[in-house]
């Protein structure tokens, strides 16, 4: 790890002034940044520790239904916040399916939004990677690609976004609140991560020096609370990134889907929301055929970026399953294995 100056500003203004200096990086929970620094992918000259900034560690449930989550709220605290979990159960389930309890205790909301891809070529300093250094190429292409993108990729980058948290958030129209040298601004999460094109590898809509201060959910977020699930397929039962994951949320009215939200994780450089599929579901009664149609719509245009065609079929099935689970209704209690296909309270949990 390269040597750096460590700065712990007391106010947001000080933080942004320090963070705007060349080579500065903001540090919150550190669970991704420190990891990247240890493998030399991130080499900041200056660490601006924002963990003591006042006022950013609160979750506010407003009367108008909007929810504002401070950027420094820890993942575990948000998932365990009863009012929040009741309003946005799929988000809580996604949070609890990510990483490990220790990491969730440290990782922050803002940091989760800023986490980098887990593409092995991005992490390997010897490999060419446009995301690490634009213009060098993409060694993932033609390499080991089981975990890579099937949607929205280009030859410049086939990496996926690894977050669980951001998948249901994207579907819920979350807005990122940003403070920066040029003042505050909002960015919709659905466009916060740009997809790669032939020229650029994609990245985050955040200028140097800008800092995420909060995440805002619109007033209708809680309207899906009764029928909201997050499902995540993994190579082991827990403590693993998704092969693919899906958030499905339905607002049901009289047995009919009044509104639907669907997004996939692990398939593209951003959580992949499908408005077309959501439209297909609107005002329809849940049925197997309907869910198949919706799944086809979500995966429209999907193409393998390597040895990962299976992810397309798997994603379709996962969308169908997530919709089925959502239609069945949000479980009263968080499953013992959040977001797992083994989440049922029956079966193996009897064995001590």
């Amino acid at each position: 790890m390269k040597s750096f100056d460590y700065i712990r500003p007391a106010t947001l203004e000080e933080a942004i002034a320090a963070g705007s200096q060349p080579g500065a990086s903001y540090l919150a929970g550190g669970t991704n940044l420190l990891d990247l620094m240890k493998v030399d992918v991130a080499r900041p000259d200056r660490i601006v520790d924002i963990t003591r900034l006042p006022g950013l560690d609160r979750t506010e449930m407003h009367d108008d239904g909007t929810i504002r989550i401070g950027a420094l709220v820890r993942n575990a605290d948000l998932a365990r916040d009863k009012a929040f979990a009741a309003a946005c159960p799929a988000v809580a389930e996604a949070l609890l399916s990510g990483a490990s309890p220790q990491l969730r205790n440290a990782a922050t909301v803002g940091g989760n939004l800023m986490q980098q891809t887990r593409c092995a070529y991005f992490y390997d300093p010897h490999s060419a990677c446009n995301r690490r250094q634009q213009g060098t190429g993409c060694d993932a292409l033609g390499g080991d690609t089981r975990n890579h993108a099937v949607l929205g990729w280009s030859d410049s980058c086939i990496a996926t976004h690894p977050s669980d948290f951001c998948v249901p958030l994207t579907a819920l129209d979350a807005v990122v609140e940003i403070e920066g040298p040029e003042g505050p601004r909002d960015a919709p999460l659905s466009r916060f991560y740009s997809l790669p094109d032939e020229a650029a590898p994609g990245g985050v809509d955040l200028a140097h020096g800008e800092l995420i201060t909060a995440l805002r959910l619109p007033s209708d977020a809680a309207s899906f609370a009764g029928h909201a699930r997050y499902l995540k397929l993994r190579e082991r039962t827990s403590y693993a990134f998704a092969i693919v994951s899906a958030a499905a949320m339905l607002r049901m009215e009289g047995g009919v889907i009044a509104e639907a939200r669907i997004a996939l994780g692990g398939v593209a450089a951003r959580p992949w929301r499908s408005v077309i599929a959501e439209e297909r579901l609107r005002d329809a009664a849940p049925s197997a055929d309907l869910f198949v149609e919706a799944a086809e719509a979500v995966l429209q245009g999907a193409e393998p970026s390597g040895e990962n065609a299976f992810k397309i079929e798997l994603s379709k099935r996962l969308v169908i399953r997530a919709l089925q689970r959502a239609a069945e209704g949000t479980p009263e209690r968080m499953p013992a294995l959040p977001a797992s296909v083994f989440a049922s309270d029956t079966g193996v949990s009897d064995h001590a």
Partner: protein
Amino acid sequence: MPDTHTPTAPTASRVRLGSNAGQPMTRRDGVAKVTGSATYAADNRPSDLLHAVFASAGIARGRVSHMDVDAAKSHPGVVKVLTPQNCPSLEIDPDAKPHAFSWRIEVLQNDSVRYAGQPIALVVAETLEAATEGARLLSPTYEEQPVRIGFDGDAPYDPPAIGIGSAPSFTKGDIDAGHASAEYSTETSIETPIQYHNAMETHAIVAEWNGDRLTLDTPNQAIVMARGMFAGYFGLPPENVTLRSPYLGGGFGSKAVPIGPQLLAILAARMLKRPVKLALRRDQMFGPVLHRGATRQTLKLGTDADGRLTALEHHSTGVTSSFDEFIEPAANASHNLYASPAIVTRHKAVRADIGTPGPMRAPGEASGSAALEIAMDIAAEAAGLDPLEFRLRNYAETDPASGKPFSSKALRECYAAAAKQFSWASRPRAPGQMRDDVGRLVGWGMGSCLFPNPMFPAQARAVLRRDGTALVETAGADMGQGAWTALAQIAADGVGLPADRIEFRSGTSDLPDGGIAGGSGHTASAGGALYAAGSDVIAKLAGLATNDPASPLFGAGNVGVAARNGRLFRADDETRSERYEDILARAGLDEIEGAGSGGRDPANAEARAMFSHGAVFAEVTIDPDLYQIRVSRLVGAFAAGRIINPKLAKSQLTGGMIWGVGFALHEEGLHDTRTGRPMNADLAGYHVPVNADVPSVEALIIDEEDPYVNPLGIKGVGEIGITGTVGAIANAVWHATGARIKSFPIHIDALLR
């Protein structure tokens, strides 16, 4: 010397272990381990300590053309950079193999690169942070050559030997005739990937010189043997080296032989005249410290109309490094388990630009058993038989390979006990018939377990003190299997004392050679030596008493005496006994010393085949559309001779079974075939099982008396648990889905249909 009932070279029929062995004692090192006071190698902090980090090669084949040594040196805190240009040579060429257990290693002897992750320089600094950054600042450039990775990177060849010195092929009977007479012929092909030991403790060393004496704190599974190997590289007499390894943070086969980074740390400590600590980073565990080699196996089985094997043919190709050889002896798993009139096994090898493989928990047996048990399942299905029934029909009453009788074999009892516990009898034969209460696919499969019972030369010393306590010592290695506890239990029985009245010393090279903690043979080998040393003391003590007219045991020489709980008893009259302290005091002795060695009666070794056996039954639960798999239940039953500590033995067995879960579902070392670089060299990419992966695992222990395997009747439990389990899980996956497994680990996409 009068005859006694505790002879120095007892035979099993005469050994009556006392009140210690056989008891489920908790670990004697338990408090140290749960309070953080157990000292692992990297926990040592001698004063004036320096930290070393090695730079890893970023290519897999070629040479280093340049390193920016100045940049590294100018990083604050860096005190030394070792490269091939300034690295002193060793007394033994690191590319030589002076010992049967030597590997060719890299100690900066030249600038060549033969696998990615190879050490290419060492940076020593005042702090770990400085050494780490110094190593990075070297920014090496390379001349690269095309790499060979996997089974198809190079032409297969016939290796002169497999494993460590084993014959690459074996033939029994007429295999062609066996195939010709078969009613059913089945062929099974299985690939197993590279797997990495990944002990939680990475290889670490603290090296400190004092003149021509060297002290090493480093985890090691073969303490005295390794001391000699380290000494050899530095031209020292072995007694000048002290190797301390009281606790290993896991070994699994990777911590027996010296590796290059350890020697580099020792060299740096000598050059800088200060102690040096080097602990591998996790990513550095994926290259220089051995791994389980990949295999490509094919089995051809012939079965007659009654479901009896007529031919068993097992071929395996193993991948080794370009510069050294360890061929996974996978096909040998078919030698000793199932009866067949004709057995052929053959090994081929392929070279690749990777680190050299080596022994990893059940080397050969794990990979070979995985393939064999799948092949047996397929053959059972072809013959229309239940998998357990098929295995019973092919039960080997004598060793299939040698024809020798087994020293003991309670496999039938294992099958029965595990099957009953699992409720195997209610299993429908056809696949895809079972569902759980929420509609998930459920499958049941089974496999047989087998592991040989090697022993290693081992010595021990025992000293009975006039206060009635004893010091018993051997350089044993506790890598988690429980040597501190199980060996102490045996040692206590050897001297006829309760365990809390012996001081058990172990884990350092200045003690008698405890042999190798490997091959599941440590308890038998070192334990035998400890027992013999105690017996030697007791024989001397009995000699004193029975010849002393003042002793109640006077004249008991012909009927013998027994030692128990700190007293000697007349064998034919237990009312006549005497305390150890009193015998010593009257003889005017401060202590009595005894020595012993472990071993096996050569006549028994020649006459008998010796194996631990077991049976594992697995239940998998699989999502019917999404195919994520969970091993929802494992039940194993094992017969492994005399069990010294059932609590610890069960932990070994369930741990091995969970390694089977990792083999079946998770573990896989991935290399980019274009560059040869490992692509998942961390614990987020290289998956091993986590707690949630193993909801229910149970190991049953089947009583087994073995009068031949060694005087104490001990076999071994460290590795057998992984055998059988991998195949059982794969067979359960078939039973759930109808899909036969062709490669490990079993990924979702292999089942997706």
